[in-house]
């Protein structure tokens, strides 16, 4: 069975694993991780791009064939996110933007309201907007309407590695959204990524679990395989779990 292509913002992605640039022990892990994981898109915080001549510039560590997904980390309002996005585009970081508006530094939960406001503006300016949100179907439909290129619901708070704590809410998004659903944040193990893909997520974004592994390249490879396995299982229409046991010799079979 042929898988359909994943297209976001007019770009076709061969891999359904997206990655991030934060938290690595050294920047030279980034190209090695990208190669091992085959990830086709990587997110980078604009505020961390250091163009000072003496220091390493993170952009130099990202191969040209990998799509850059600048993010607005640090923004506390829609206006700040919009400004960061415009600067990213002017700086040659491309047309993609992940909107991350966080006003809660304790749990790092996204501010859905500000995110929607920023999405409206930036989609109107032709950006391929990927908003990072708490999974809320009503909001997701509004984001779609505003022109979001994909929706990025969180599985669990950033960096917690707790997996798909919001699974039933994400399921509603997957069932009802026309644009791709990319599960972002909280994915701590390859099995979490596989779980997201099995339930029909279009892709996942993983940073902490890969970047803080002892061997980020090897962990990137592990995630790549898990994402593929989960996707194949989804395509194979795996059997649903059931709360009740189902006898293989049904009692009412004689009625058929």
């Amino acid at each position, binding site marked *: 069975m042929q898988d359909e292509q994943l297209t976001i913002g007019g770009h076709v992605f061969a891999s359904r694993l997206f990655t991030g640039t*934060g*938290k*690595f*022990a*050294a*920047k030279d892990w980034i190209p090695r991780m990208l190669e091992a994981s085959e990830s086709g898109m990587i997110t980078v*915080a*604009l*505020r*961390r*791009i*250091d163009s*000072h001549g*003496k*220091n390493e510039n993170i952009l130099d560590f990202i191969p040209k064939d990998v799509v850059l997904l600048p993010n607005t980390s*640090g923004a*506390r309002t829609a206006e*700040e996110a919009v*400004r*960061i996005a415009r*600067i990213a585009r002017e700086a040659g970081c491309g047309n993609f933007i992940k909107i991350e508006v966080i*006003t*809660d*530094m*304790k*749990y790092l939960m996204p501010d859905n309201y500000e995110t929607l406001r920023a999405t409206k503006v930036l989609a109107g300016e032709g950006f391929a907007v990927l908003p990072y949100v708490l999974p809320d179907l009503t909001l997701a439909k509004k984001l779609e309407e505003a022109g979001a290129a994909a929706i990025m619901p969180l599985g669990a708070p950033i*960096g*917690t*590695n707790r997996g798909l704590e919001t699974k039933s809410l994400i399921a509603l998004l997957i069932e009802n959204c026309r644009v791709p659903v990319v599960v972002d944040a909280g994915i701590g193990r390859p099995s979490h990524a596989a779980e997201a893909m099995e339930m029909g997520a279009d892709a996942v974004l993983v940073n*902490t679990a890969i*970047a*803080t592994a002892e061997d980020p390249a090897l962990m990137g490879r592990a995630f790549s395989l898990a994402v593929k396995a989960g996707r194949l299982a989804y395509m194979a229409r795996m059997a649903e779990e059931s709360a009740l046991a189902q006898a293989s010799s049904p009692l009412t079979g004689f009625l058929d």
Partner: protein
Amino acid sequence: MSVYSEIERYHDFDFRSFFAGVSKARVEAVLAKEKLSEHDFLVLLSPAASGCLEQMAHRAHRLTGQYFGHTIQLFIPLYISNFCSNECVYCGFHRGNTISRKKLSLAEIEEEARAIAATGMRHILLLTGEAPGVTPIAYLEEVIRLLKRYFSSVSIEIFPLDVEEYKRLRLAGADGLTLYQEVYDEDRYRLVHKAGRKTDYRYRLDAPERGARAGLRMVNVGPLLGLGEIRSEVFFCGLHAKYLENTFLQTEIGLSLPRMNPAEGNYQPEFEADDRSFVQFITALRCFLPRAGITVSTREKASFRDKLIRLGATRFSAGSCTGVGGYGEGQPEGTPQFEITDERSVDEVVQAIRNAGYQPVYKDWDMI
């Protein structure tokens, strides 16, 4: 609302007998929990917890890696004035000390900024003594505007201000505030702060929350270890940071445990924390506050600081000079506020961080 009421709750608490009563089994029970309460934190500060230091260190290492990755954020301090109207018995800038006093002009500050920027540093911490007449808000605004041309982040470690004054400095470009209470024990505070504006315990204690209310992005608190009974001081520091985290969701909260070094006043600290206890306190704080930034300054010696990279530290100062100026062509003026013990250059500190398997981060902020 004030952190004062949090501290008040422990006014009659007998820390000494509490700590004496903690068993190793109780420490182990705390370490088996996922989320620690205030009381659990106290347990980890007890002498008995010292026996579980390795477990605490592993937990601190894991949590820090999880929330901050394998990175250390770098910043550099710049003293622009050592004029001071306070009499803090432990400080080299004490108004009674006959040291040469100096306030940098804008031109001198620009020269310093240029020299510092050439090292690659992008985050700067601006420091002054407490002499608002000499370094008024208008002057500080100008200094911050000037530094913003050279650095992506400008933080302040100056005398406490009102909300409106903090707002003015934020609008000039400051984004972070460091303000150490020095000592949380109010009686001890009175003993060591003899004269000047700093005698007002409450005004200083409430300053970090005024800074947060004024919209500063990052607020850093802590005690100066040596001025009060150490374990309870570390506890109050944790309590303070927790209170700020809970009250100001928008603000990144950080802390630090500066340990006393000999200063010009030749003050002999009454309380001391040895290296083992220091590691216990840092790891206990990390277990209690997984997301708090933890700064380790050049007060700590190089070899010890390098070890703390894996034990919970997230921010390092580097290439520090604690006299006024000192980075540009001219010699630093006056006596330093305290003696630094890690005298390595920025490049040497960066190399040490890399050797520990961590990424030195010059820049993680831009006010856009």
